[in-house]
Structure formats: C-alpha cells, structure tokens
C-alpha cells in the first residue's frame, strides 16, 4: 500500500480536514501528562506528536472507565417500569490519531475477550467498527518499554490502519497498512508526496534503531509450554506479592486489562445500569454472597493478575501473552512491582525445573 511523506504542517492540515468530517481523538497535554481527547479543528496543532505514553492507555476510548449501559424508570406508574433501554450513544465514524503501536496491539488482545463467536459486546464491537486508527511509531522508546519481547514493537502495525513515522527532520512518513487506512486516505486526502527511497531508508533505519534500543526480556515460549499448575504453585509468588498494596494502578493504567463491574444506580424515579472498570486487585472482585472468597489473600490476587496475562490468556487463546510492553505498570506501580521481573522469575523457575 502507499507510503507518503508529509511535513508537519501537512500532517496538521490533514488532521484538521478529518475533524471537519468525523470525530477525531488525539493525544494532547492535560496538566502534566498526555491524554487522548476529542479535538476540533482549532486544536489540531495542539496534538503532541512526540509524547512518550499517555498516562492512561487509550483503552478508555473503547471501554470507558464508566459507561452507562441501560436506563430505566423506577416509577410503578410508568408503563415501561423496570424495562431496560439501551442508552443512545454516538457510534459515528471516528479516527484516533497518534496511538502508539503497543496500545493498538492491546486492542487486538482485547478483541478476543469482547468479540467472541458466542457473544459480542455491543459497545466494544460498535466502537471498534466505527474507528480508524492512525498510529504513531515510537522512534525513542522509554527505558520501561519492552514491546519487542511481547509480540509487538515500536513500529508494530498489527492494530493500526495507518502508521505515522516521525523521520526526525520534522517530516513524517505515512504508511497505509490496511484497507481501512486506504479508505481514510481516500476520504481525506493526506497531501504530501510519494515517499522516495531515501525516506524509506530513513524509516527502516529508525525502526532498526528503535527496536535495538529495547532490552529483551528473554524467550517467552516456556510460558506456553509449561503446565499452568507448575506456575500457579510456584514459590515465586510469595516474593512477588510482598510489596503489593492491592491498589488498582496497574490494572487501570494497563492497556490490556478489561475487567469490569456492573452497577445499578437510582436517581429518584429513574435509574441507570453502569459498567465500570474493576480490578482483580480488589478483594470485592471475587467475594461471594456467602462471604467465601476464592481470592481472599493478596498473594492470590497478585498471582491472578500475572497468571492471567502471562499464562491463562496464552493457554486459552493461543495468541501469546496479554501484555504489550507499554511499561505503564512498571513506571507507576507505587511499590515498584515490575512485570519484567515477574516474567524473568517465571522463566527462571522454568529453567530450574528442566
């Protein structure tokens, strides 16, 4: 598919044209960190083309932290009393500009959960269908990043429709990587010129350099090969869990954590059923009505989080680990529990077992 080179002004102008036809979400600075926000044509030049990671992953654009599912009347006089009605939402076409490849790869990981042969989560599926993703390659990954170790990479295009690569001289290479990306470029012409061999060589060079900057964790295939119970019963969890304070930082910042809660709220005579992010770190997550809790202990909850990402998901779907190496949990865990260390411990334990 086609590859173009755009100047920054051309890129901004392209995004501005999009804002006039569809909803556009892009990374902008909010206080002291970056966040994906809806941008209008006046804000196109506020887009941060060199941000590291948004503090919160863009998963919230597809799976919002709090989302109204249904509304209902609680008044017995209402003929539609207690009948749940879907809350109307805007599922019109939209473009997310500037998503990092890891965050886009995370959406693919979550598709497996929300878009299944048996059930389709309507909100997830409709938002995914409505969205075209223009990614932004990572030319200088952070020291907490490890995407290349977990089936992704700084230039990974698997979750993307278009990849933008900052060429380092103020220009961007635009790489159309899907049909959908093609359609976007037809609907909103990006301008620019055809990428010449020099630009493509620069792109290849930047990609190699970025990949080389990422420290590999090691060969993760033992995670797949060894038996679930060997990992589950391993002594490593005692050490891993000690520092954990069971907050929800890792799960809420994680681009692949999808767990949610469903809560009803009533406001006088009407009510709302909401879906809210939840976390396997919280004891309430698994507490039975009887008072029994299968994961009552911190160790069990910590183990669940890592086992889910690194073993259960691997075994259940055969698509590798449910981690894209964005490094948010590494950076923001208040007590420095580092998933890279946990992976290493799991791998070392495997080696010992051999």
């Amino acid at each position, binding site marked *: 598919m086609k590859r173009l080179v755009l100047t920054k002004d051309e890129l901004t102008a392209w995004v501005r044209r999009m804002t006039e036809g569809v909803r556009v979400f892009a990374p902008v600075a909010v206080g*002291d960190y970056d966040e994906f926000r809806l941008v209008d044509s006046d804000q196109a030049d506020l887009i941060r083309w060199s941000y590291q990671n948004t503090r919160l992953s863009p998963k919230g654009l597809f799976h919002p932290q709090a989302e109204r599912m249904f509304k209902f009347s609680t008044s017995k006089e209402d003929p539609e009393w207690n009948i749940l009605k879907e809350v109307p939402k805007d599922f019109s076409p939209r473009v997310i500009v500037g998503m990092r490849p890891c965050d886009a790869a995370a959406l693919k990981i979550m598709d497996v959960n929300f878009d299944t042969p048996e059930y389709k989560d309507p909100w997830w599926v409709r938002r995914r269908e409505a969205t075209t993703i223009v990614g932004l390659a990572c030319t200088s990954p952070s020291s907490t990043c490890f995407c290349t170790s977990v089936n992704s990479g700084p230039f990974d295009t698997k979750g993307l429709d278009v990849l933008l690569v900052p060429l380092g001289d103020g220009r961007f290479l635009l790489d159309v990587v899907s049909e959908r990306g093609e359609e976007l470029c037809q609907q909103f012409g990006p301008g620019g010129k055809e990428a010449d061999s020099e630009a493509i060589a620069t792109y290849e060079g930047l990609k190699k350099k970025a990949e080389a900057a990422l420290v590999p964790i090691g060969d993760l295939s033992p995670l797949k090969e060894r038996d679930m119970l060997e990992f589950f019963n391993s002594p490593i969890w005692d050490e891993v869990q000690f520092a954990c304070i069971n907050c929800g930082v890792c799960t809420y910042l994680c681009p692949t954590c999808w767990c949610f809660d469903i809560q009803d709220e009533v406001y006088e005579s009407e009510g709302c059923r909401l879906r809210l992010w939840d976390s396997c770190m919280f004891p*309430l997550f698994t507490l039975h009505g009887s008072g029994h809790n299968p994961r009552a202990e911190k160790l069990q909850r910590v183990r669940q989080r890592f086992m889910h990402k690194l073993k259960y998901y691997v075994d259940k779907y055969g698509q590798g680990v449910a981690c894209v190496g964005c490094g948010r949990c590494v950076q923001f865990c208040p007590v420095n529990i580092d998933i890279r260390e946990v992976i290493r411990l799991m791998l070392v334990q495997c080696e010992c077992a051999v």
Partner: protein
Amino acid sequence: MFDYTEKIREIARRLLQEKKVDGIIGFKKGTIPMMNQPVFITSPDRVELLHWDSWCGVNLANYLPKREGRIGIVAKGCDTRSIVVLSQENQVQRDQLYIIGVPCRGMLDRRKVWEVVGSTDVKGIEEGNGKVRVWGNGFDLKLERSELLQNNCVICVHRNPVVFDELVADEVEEQSVDRYGDIRNIEAMSSDEKWNLFQEIFSRCIRCYACRNACPFCYCPQCFVDESRPQWVGKTIDRTDTLTFHLLRAFHMAGRCTDCGACERACPVGIPVRLLTKKLEKDVKELYGYEAGVQLDERPPLDTYKPDDPEDFIK
C-alpha cells in the same frame, strides 16, 4: 549522608543471626530509577538486598498490621509516627517490633524531577553533596536536592524517629516551618472558589484507591466504598462520587495522619490528596492541641474528649 544502606544491612544481619526477629521489612533497590521496592528479608544471607536512598518514600508501617511474629522494620520519622498510631489502635504491638530508625533529610519526588527534565523517562540518577544528577535521552542535569523534596518532606517537623530500638545514624536537625500556609489560603476562599478548586483537583481521580491502600491506617476489613447496604458512595468517576470518596477517606485520617505523603506519592495522576488530610491535621491541632503519632500512651483525639472542647458552632 545517605550511606545508611551498609548500616541497615549490618543491623539486619545481626538481628536475623541472633534470631531477635523473624524478618526485616526494608527496601530493596528498585528496577527503575527513583523507585525502590519494599521487601521482607527473613534470612541473613539475603540482607545484601537491603538498600536505602532518597527514594524510600513508601511508608513501611503499611506492611505491619496483621503480620505475625517479631518484625524488624526500617523506619523514617513519619513511619515511626505511623507505628505509634498503629500501636495506639492495637494494630501492632510495640514489643513485637524492632524499629531500625532512620533519621531522614526528606525523600525526593520523582514528579518534580520529571517536571524539571521535561520527561518521565529518566535513565539514571545519582546524588551527593546536596546535588542530584539526573540523565536521560537528551538531558544530563545537576539539580538542587532541596528543590526535589516531596511536598510533605519540605514541611516535615519530625525527621527523626519518635520511637526506635536503634538508629542507623545520628539524629538530624529538625526544621521549624509553617505547615499550613496552603491550607490557610484555601480557608480564606469563598465557598464557590473552594468548591471549584476541589472539583478541579479531584476531576482526574480514576478511583484506583492507591491513596487509600498506600496508607498504613487503611486496614478496615471492609472499606466503606465496598459497602452496598446502604451504598455510601457510587463507584463511578462522577465528580460527586469521587469527592465523596476522598472526603470520607480523609475524614477517617482525622487525628491519625502523620503526613508521611505515601498517599500523594502513590497517586498515578498526581492529585494533591494531602490538601484534605492536612486540613484535618491543622484543625485537630488547633482545636484539641494534638499531634498524631508522637506519644505512645496518648489516646487518639477522636477516641477521647475534654468537657470544655470548643463548641461555638453548636447552637
């Protein structure tokens, strides 16, 4: 100044070898710059893991409640005050603890470093003579240590442990500072201004409960946020719910908070949650002359009263 690591290891080794304690709660060096990890050392051959530097802001007293056996704990001034409070509340028994006291010149705040260097990707940091050198992609700077202190450390008045079994070094000089300047500024605002300020402050909250869980005093078997009959606070990120959560959380800290800063440090989105706890601290001090975690044999201020407590607000 921060050559406490060797001394801590030495004490820990001795305590474990002499079987004075079953384990030591301390820090091990973090996997990334400006972070360290709480660790529990139970064997003398593992004491080399113990580490101390300016990034030990986690309050280790948080790991004490419900822990069995004789425990050694590395504790800064604020941590020891937390131990005092936990002891008043019967969550720990002083005689089961061996407190390795750390006179503290203040912990550093990585947010301040990020702000100065303009990036959250710091590749390395080192410290000496009141200066901090920090480097990463495209920067290598020398900063004043005093400029990087955690906000609570800037106004700390108990840098030295208030209870301990052993100190790792000589006591440091205590500072004399005005702790409540920012609180008074807010108090002077109109209701509307105050409301708008706090609406803005808490609008970024993601309800991860890191502030709650980083606190040594949040040990209730069930938190009010998890109560459903009745439900006191909604679980959404609606501003009313978020403020309700923060108000009740802060109120539960009244007369207990030692301003260790663990809550603010843990917040992934940088909410200054201490603005609420410090207000309560100020009121407790002004109304009841009480300072949390200083005297082992005192009763917490909400667990006692004086017949002539101020009541001019009561009709």
